[in-house]
């Protein structure tokens, strides 16, 4: 049998196992919106740990991570850096969010913020922001999956078909099982990715250089390699030394936005207890640690395979150059698919849930808003969003990467609202609206016109500089929210 057929069969088995693991758990949750969106608030530590971890690690981590280390060297440490503190806020607000969700029936981020700030406009705004950010994110995951399958099949399966097959599997289990499908598949995919990443990250330096230390010593001594490949903050996208402004602000913005990404935040509603929620935040760095071998894959290729372009293809490139057992290559490709799908499913599920609960439902009359109907709308939206992302992934030529790059800056603007929800009683709905609108507008402005930034900092920082004073100033100028409402949150 030809090698690529063996690899394809392994990917096929992986897809079949994923589908089974995704569909079966959905049969156990209730036939309700809470069942579909928050898994009846029954996720235990094991599942929640993997949902949070595997949702973060997308095909960007598996393809982009090694690509960054390969082309920008130490700049890639930024990806580890923002996870160092990024998940810590979840430890504090996660349990509060969970308890309030249980008491008042919230299942999305916008629902709880809407209630605290007493503003439906805020809910719609957050729904739009989430979906605008999610569609390019999902599109990139689909592209990643299509790319993997095309590479594996040596072109026999075109990209549109590869992306179509992988995401049909995702669509099916998200459609039938909702968040529990996401949960169980992410546990399987997460374990699979971790095992492969550690194996490859340690094996490649050993095979190519005789060890990790030897590898870094040779990179450091090589006259052909800039010393900034190993000296923080590494290189920028143009290949020149990156500034500390750029590195530090990128770490800060990403860390700020990390815990309030709507698809991660809303998993607090799925946790079965406060202990689960807290321990998920405590244990998160053990998942983040798996970026270490991922980056080593990229470093291993610097001296041995120079000038591979684009840098994101370095992992598949290395795999095809080395004389590895075909089963192993198949497993790695399946692992890359897992990375793409474990983020894609969470995003798809969240985008549809948010679109219905925080957008559509606000405009429907009560008789069209029963629990059963809402669940049906979410499922329909799951299909529509899949098709839309698929259109952007394989048909449209719109450059979406830029949109995604800007998304961290936009998402970070939600953080001040979440913080004030619990820790600043005087924050009002108008303040929240003004802060969010101002912050997002400024972020988009500097994303579009980077030349106008006074310092070379991430545009999200400028957004926050405008966001926080607006939130505080407008809040102080407007009437406080009712005592009873505020107390629910400060005593949560």
């Amino acid at each position, binding site marked *: 049998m030809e090698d690529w057929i063996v690899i394809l069969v392994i990917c096929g088995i992986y897809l079949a196992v994923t589908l089974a693991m995704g569909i079966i758990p959905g049969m156990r949750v209730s036939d309700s919106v809470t069942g579909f969106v928050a898994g009846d608030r029954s996720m235990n530590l094991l599942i929640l740990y993997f949902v949070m971890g595997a949702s973060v690690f997308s095909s960007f981590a598996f393809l982009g991570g090694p690509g960054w280390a390969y082309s920008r060297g*130490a700049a890639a*440490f930024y990806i*580890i*850096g923002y*996870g*160092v*503190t990024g998940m*810590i806020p979840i*430890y*504090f607000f996660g*349990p*509060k969010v969970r*308890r309030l969700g249980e008491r008042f029936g919230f299942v999305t981020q916008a629902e709880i913020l809407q209630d605290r700030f007493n503003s439906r406009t805020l809910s719609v705004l957050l729904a739009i922001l989430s979906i605008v950010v999610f569609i390019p994110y999902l599109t990139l995951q689909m592209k990643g999956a299509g790319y993997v399958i095309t590479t594996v099949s040596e072109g026999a399966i075109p990209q549109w078909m590869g992306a179509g097959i992988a995401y049909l599997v995702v669509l099916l289990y998200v459609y039938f099982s909702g968040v529990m499908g996401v949960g169980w598949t992410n546990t399987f995919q997460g374990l699979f990715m971790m095992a492969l990443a550690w194996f490859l990250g340690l094996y490649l330096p050993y095979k190519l250089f005789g*060890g*990790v*230390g*030897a*590898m*870094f*010593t040779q990179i*450091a001594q090589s006259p052909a390699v800039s*010393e900034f490949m*190993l*000296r*923080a*903050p590494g290189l920028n996208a143009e290949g020149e030394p990156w500034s*500390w*402004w750029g*590195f*530090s602000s990128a*770490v*800060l913005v990403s*860390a700020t936005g990390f815990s309030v990404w709507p698809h991660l935040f809303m998993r607090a509603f799925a946790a079965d*207890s*406060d*202990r689960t929620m*807290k*321990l998920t*935040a*405590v244990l998160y*760095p*053990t998942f*983040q*640690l798996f970026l*270490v071998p991922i*980056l080593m894959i990229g470093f291993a290729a610097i001296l041995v395979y120079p000038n591979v372009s684009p840098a994101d293809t370095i992992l598949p490139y290395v795999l095809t150059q080395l004389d590895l057992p075909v089963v192993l290559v198949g497993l790695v490709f399946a692992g890359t698919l897992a990375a793409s799908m474990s983020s894609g499913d969470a995003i798809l599920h969240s985008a549809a849930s948010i679109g219905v609960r925080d957008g559509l439902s606000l405009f429907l009359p009560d008789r069209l808003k029963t629990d059963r109907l809402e669940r049906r709308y979410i499922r329909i939206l799951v299909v529509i969003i899949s098709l839309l992302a698929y259109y952007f992934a394989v048909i449209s030529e719109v450059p979406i990467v830029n949109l995604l790059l800007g998304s961290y800056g936009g998402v970070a603007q939600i953080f001040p609202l979440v913080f004030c929800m619990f820790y600043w009683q005087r924050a009002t709905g108008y303040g929240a609206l003004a802060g969010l609108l101002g912050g997002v507008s400024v972020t988009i402005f500097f994303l579009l016109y980077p030349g106008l930034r006074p310092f070379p900092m991430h545009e999200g920082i400028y957004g926050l500089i405008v966001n926080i004073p607006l939130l505080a100033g407008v809040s102080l100028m407007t009437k406080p929210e009712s005592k009873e409402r505020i107390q629910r949150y400060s*005593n949560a």
Partner: protein
Amino acid sequence: MRSRKIIFLVLLFIIQLSIIWPVYSLFSGIHPMILGFPLSFAWIVAMLFASFFLLLWYYWSDPARHQTRTSDKAGDH
């Protein structure tokens, strides 16, 4: 604010500064290599461990955890 929380916040602030300018710039070089890793890489991984142990300590030392472990009302207010 309890001293436990103050210690936590101060250490968290130090860790945060250690992964950006200015503190990271002091540990951003290649040498000395630590366990085969350049200093810049080893430092950021060390900070990941530091934040892990910090939050783990904070969780373990939470007085509410011992009082109401089963009732699930434990939490920081």
